[in-house]
């Protein structure tokens, strides 16, 4: 696992059934592109988050394939429909095989 990876997620704590909400996510990650060279001129190997997914109660909201052209500390904003109370699960997939997972519950009423 890359060191010090830390997600930040903004999801409202409640919504009405069927409401559209805006979700914002940020995660600390260097997103080493594989294009850079170190002081000795050797290429620095690529090390990025290559996929991000968000599901709500097991159904997909968004699934993004990410390339080295995504900025350091990747930011993703999107809109979700909230059909009922439940849990959003966010996953970031690292090149090194690590998966960083966070969840946020939302109430409806």
């Amino acid at each position, binding site marked *: 696992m890359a060191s010090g990876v830390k997600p930040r997620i903004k999801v409202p704590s409640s919504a009405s059934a069927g409401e559209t909400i805006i979700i914002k996510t940020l995660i600390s990650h260097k997103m080493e592109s594989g294009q850079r060279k170190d002081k000795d001129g050797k290429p620095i190997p690529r090390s990025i988050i290559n996929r991000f997914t968000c599901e709500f109660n097991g159904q997909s909201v968004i699934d993004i*394939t990410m390339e*080295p052209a995504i900025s350091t500390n990747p930011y993703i904003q999107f809109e979700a429909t909230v059909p009922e109370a439940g849990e959003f699960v966010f996953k970031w997939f690292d090149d090194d095989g690590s998966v960083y997972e966070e969840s946020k519950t939302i109430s409806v009423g």
Partner: protein
Amino acid sequence: MQFTRRDTLALGLGAAALAGMPSAVLASVEDEIADFTGGAEIADGGVTLDAPEIAENGNTVPISVSAPGAVAIRIVATGNPSPKVATINFGPLAASPSAALRIRLAKTQDILAIARMADGSFRRAAATVKVTIGGCGG
């Protein structure tokens, strides 16, 4: 379909930029598009791609895309060493086929957003982003 002045300009510049590109780079841009579309025809319009006209730093360029009726959107940076940026797949609970990201642009270039619609057709939008090189900036 309506074009804003900026859209028209961007599309025109896009064509000019593609025409002026070395063939290797052009090939990889074409490959990246064909990989998504399977070579299908792409109609202009129906996709909104918001990007700054001038990016203060190419390391972090905020962009947003939206395409009503789309199931997936691929973003392509035509002037980067690799044109690949991201492919966004919208699930059943996406309230709208839209997203905002921050991307890296190596230099002034056109970026493309290509949307795959629910009926299998493709649409696109382009935007030119000028990437400034700082005077000093410490």
